[in-house]
């Protein structure tokens, strides 16, 4: 036993408490007037049937598909409505200073390239699935 535990145990022992005879009589008298009962248990809500969870899942999927379809249709209409940019005046282009950047093409290591390919393939698959699901 460590020092703190020992001290706590000793100090608890220094607290003197004893049920007096008067309190003993009082408790015994009170107990005589009590009848044991069964504590009411908190009632649990009835379990949901499996069909409830199936219906919930289907509703969720349908709602998600509807949201995706609405967002996509809005994007298409926005693209159609967006004004076509006019050709940039030549004098502005002339005013923009050109910065001669010496850049080198990053050589991607093989694992990174594979990772990139895998990610792109995943994106294409996901895009295809969403299109199929929403009927495009």
């Amino acid at each position, binding site marked *: 036993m460590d020092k703190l535990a020992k001290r706590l145990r000793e100090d608890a022992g220094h607290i003197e408490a004893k049920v007096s005879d008067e309190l003993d009589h009082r408790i015994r008298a009170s107990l005589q007037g009590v009848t*044991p009962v069964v504590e009411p248990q908190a009632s649990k809500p009835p379990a949901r049937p499996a069909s409830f969870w199936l219906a919930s899942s289907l509703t969720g999927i349908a709602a998600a598909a509807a949201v995706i379809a609405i967002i996509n249709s809005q994007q298409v209409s926005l693209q159609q409505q967006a004004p076509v940019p006019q050709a940039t005046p030549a004098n502005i282009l002339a005013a923009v200073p050109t910065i001669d950047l010496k850049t080198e093409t990053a050589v991607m290591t093989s694992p990174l390239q594979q990772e990139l390919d895998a990610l792109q393939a995943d994106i294409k698959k996901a895009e295809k699935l969403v299109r199929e699901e929403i009927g495009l």
Partner: protein
Amino acid sequence: MRTETQLIAAAQAGSADAFADLVQLYRDRLLRFLLTRCASYADAEDALQDTLINAYRYIRSYDSRWRFSTWLYRIAIRNAGKLRTPEVVELGDLRDEENDPLLQCISDSETENLWVSARRLLNDEVFAAMWLRYAEDLSVNDISTALDRSVSWTKVNLMRGRKTLDAAMNETENQSEAYG
């Protein structure tokens, strides 16, 4: 002499005398614990009486998988919690050392009783956890059951309580050494 199991069975059948015999072992220990939580000795006695009456009233709900002492402490902690309404806490803060039931019951000692520091430094639940662990020697599982908390909560708060009291103990010891 009847065993605890036999006394529990008799109490569940409606024998108040069997119940009184059953709790004989625990009454003084419960009173000692309640003294640390109540504003006066009389309040602690009332809390003990309420605890035992509630325990007897619901003795049929006692699950024998628990230790009887754990079940009793669970009821005592709930009762003590009900006593500590904001008004009582406020009164408790105002209590002076002469009327403090805990200080009244501490036998003379050279150093401050660490449970007095614990009551000042820890919140009610952590204090109760520390008390059940070190004064009553209950296991972590029993303490978590008595406090209606998870085992991990109990472990973490026991560790925090220990850390706080360890610092308080070292500080007291350093002061004692400094004063010679």
